[in-house]
């Protein structure tokens, strides 16, 4: 009989595997804030832009929603995380900005400095 701690360790390994199978190890991970406050600021539209990009062929990108980190006046926020680099946080992202983030940052690796939260 395994103890609860042994069970949870097994469950964690399974959970991590499931996350990885969804593409977590892609070279870039994109997180879009999707709490009530972020949605009110327009993050649903932003999310759709990223989803659409992935549907139409953007590859090697892991897309996920997340809760509110608490930077209210800069919402919607989008994080681009790359292993081994400092995660980049974009603030006040609109549909148009999201498209540019996809074209310039995700596809060409160009960081759009002026939109970063500092």
């Amino acid at each position: 009989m395994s103890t609860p701690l042994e069970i949870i360790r097994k469950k964690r390994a399974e959970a991590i595997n499931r996350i990885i199978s969804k593409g977590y190890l892609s070279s870039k991970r994109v997180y879009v804030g999707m709490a009530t406050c972020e949605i009110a600021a327009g993050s649903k539209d932003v999310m759709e832009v990223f989803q659409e990009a992935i549907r139409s062929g953007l590859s090697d990108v892991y897309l996920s929603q997340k809760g509110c980190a608490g930077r209210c006046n800069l919402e919607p926020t989008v994080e681009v995380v790359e292993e081994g680099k400092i995660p980049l946080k974009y603030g006040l992202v609109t549909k148009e900005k999201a498209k540019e983030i996809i074209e310039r940052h995700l596809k060409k690796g160009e960081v759009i400095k002026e939109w970063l939260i500092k």
Partner: protein
Amino acid sequence: MPVRFNITLCDGPSCIHKRSKEVVSTIEGELEKHGLTGKVGINLSGCLGMCSKGPVMIINPGYTIYGAFAEEDIPEIIQQHIMKKKPVTRFIIDEDHLYNRFFRVFGDVNFFGKQMRIALRNCGIIDPENIDDYISLRGYEALAKALTDMSPGKVIAEIKKSGLRGRGGAGFPTGIKWELTAKEENDEKYVICNADEGDPGAFMDRSAIEGDPHTIVEGMLIAGFAIGAKKGIVYIRAEYPLAVKRIKKAIADAGREGFLGDNILGSNFNFDIEVRLGAGAFVCGEETALMLSIEGHRGMPRPRPPFPSVSGLFGKPTLINNVETWANIPVIILDGADWFSSLGTEKSKGTKVFALAGKVKNTGLVEVPMGTTLRQIIYNIGGGIPGDKKFKAVQTGGPSGGCLSEEYLDTKIDYESLAKAGSIMGSGGMIIIDEDSCMVNIAKFFLEFTQNESCGKCTPCREGTKRMLEILTRITEGKGAEGDIDKLQRLGNMIKKASLCGLGQSAPNPVLSTIKNFRAEYEEHVFNKRCRAGVCQHLLVYEITDKCVGCSVCKKACSVGAISGAPKARHVIDINKCIKCGACFKVCKFNAIRKS
């Protein structure tokens, strides 16, 4: 190109003592020597909770934590880690606390780097609707630890030892509450999560549930195990549809994974959670009213004792805690009470979440260790007052709290010091007020809220707040009379003493604290019929100055015909006709209308 490395240096009191300031200049000097200035970011954080190993710094990416190094060791760390990418192992401290993860992502941003996230550790990090995300970050491990290695008594002892106090506002020691409920012998006990967040401008609980619902579920499970309850209820207001959706999904997912239901994780512990929606009455955040509301009755407080721990929901022993309190539980179990109680002040341990709002540059959610000063929150994290305006007051604790003036800015945040200063910790609303706001009007706003939300059961609250509001309204309309301020104070103190529940006992606070700290403003309203902030409409006087070119735009905008004057000549306002609507002020392109 953004910086390639980022150094976060702990600037908590203990690390300052260990010369963190000197460490910064040594680092800067070393970077300059190697031409790395500007390529490596440096920022100072609040206490990182590793005081015994100070000075502490974190180098990102990679989240390498260095501690207990001397200033002479800095050149080596910079040369090895930053230039050759070889971490210096002998100074690395391996302390994987749950909150660390937040700073891997957000630590380099000033607003976040100065915070410390325990309750909100996963908010903005994980997908709240994916239980795998939570499990992968040691989710439900605290529950498993309690079930495997701890007896119920040991769990309670740990919570007691941590010094955690209720985050809903009153600050009752959580461990004692658990112990009292555990002591009762009854087959049926309840665990309730109070998510009826109602303070205007507060959104801590909503964000916590929307960002990380599983931590609430896990906290409640641990309590259920500790006190011997089988049933949990989350009482949440229906105005938070997304939070409701996410907590419901979390409960369903947790059930599927075997964290809820019978024989949880192979043990003989059974527990279930259901969600009850509140209709949004402020008084239902009060525990006895909340429980009546769950039972299907009208939400009204009742006298205590008996306390809920003895006779609560359906007359059974009930443990009721606030959302933020629940979010702290898994951390205390996993990281230990000793670590948790090393944070904060003597009587208030851990961190507190605040919803920073109002006239401050960076608004948002802030979680800081207890003992942080108001000034640090408003200026270091909040970035100060926008538009070079002058700070006037900070309002803490929502409609139950008070307004503190500039002299209280260095007050350390904990339950006792805020109470001593004349406000309260409350659930965590923090509204910054600048010189453009009228304190009488602010007090009136909060009193209007509590007066509306008074359930009407006891006379002091029902009648008293109404009378106070009448006096305040009179004052803001320029009809204040001598003695009004004293009347407000007398009534206020009476309501505080005589009311049945926390709503009435705290409702006069905004008025009493503004009278205490801003009496001169009240006197100006009453005796000089003047509002220095220009907010109270009835006290304003509009005048046309000699900047007027006679364009007559204001004349057309005035709906009561109070403005007269020939074209191209200076116009005048008839103050007897003027209703002080401000329409002329808004349309004038020449800045010729003066409001005073």
